[in-house]
């Protein structure tokens, strides 16, 4: 706590000294100039660090969520490019082609959607 106060005081001192210097500067001088971002640079704020609620060690941050760091229901060696997890693996949905589509009345029974990704 003492360190924080000391740092705060030091920062204030530097700021005040700078302000005084600016006040004493002749008209037209620009002791402190705030320059906006250079042309062509991105001025948006960037999120540098995740917050404390992030699923630690997992690398997943989904807005408003807490994954809890558990990978228990992940299927092993999952390759999303190959169509996801194996049928029924750890509670995952069965991939297309491994079982019939649900009989939800939307599809013609017995037909499987054809998928193409470019």
């Amino acid at each position, binding site marked *: 706590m003492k360190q924080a106060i000391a740092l705060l005081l030091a920062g204030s001192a530097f700021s005040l000294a700078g302000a005084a210097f600016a006040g004493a500067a002749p008209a037209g001088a620009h002791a402190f100039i705030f320059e906006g971002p250079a042309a062509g640079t991105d001025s948006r704020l960037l999120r540098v660090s995740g917050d404390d609620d992030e699923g630690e060690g997992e690398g997943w941050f989904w807005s408003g969520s807490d994954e809890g760091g558990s990978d228990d229901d992940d299927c092993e060696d999952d390759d999303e490019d190959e169509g*996801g997890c194996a049928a029924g693996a750890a509670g995952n*949905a069965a991939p297309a082609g491994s079982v019939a589509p649900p009989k939800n009345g939307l599809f013609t029974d017995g037909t499987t*959607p054809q998928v193409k990704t470019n």
Partner: protein
Amino acid sequence: MKPLHAALALTTAIIAPGLASARPVTLTTNLAQYGGPGAYLAIYVTDASGAYAGSLWMAGGRSKYYRHLSDWSRLTGGDAAQVDGITGASVGSGRSLELTMDLADKLFDAGYTLHIDAAAEDMRESPNEIAVPLTTQGAGQPVQGRRYIADFTYAF
């Protein structure tokens, strides 16, 4: 011979309406260059009252992340069985997902709406990013997305 004709007419009468009650529909989802890993997409339908009617496709195989497709999850209780047999890989930034399926005619011009929820790792959820009424007139008309989806089109 007459019994044969009669049988043929009867089977035609039974089969023909069934054939006419569905049509091949192509759903094309073009993803925006959102600069992240593969997006999970839930494509589903609600009826005229807004009630969940069923799912058409799930892009993304890990059910633990389905809760981030928040509208779909709310409507289905996160039930992965809803997408058994209609689940594929997540879809990368800038890529497109093209699905062709035989859809029931009853879905068109009857108040049904097709929805797409989207989410991606390290990025925000985007429920109901696409909500497009299923009509014959709307076929072939691109609908703009908000975050992950550049546009979506269904066509006969």
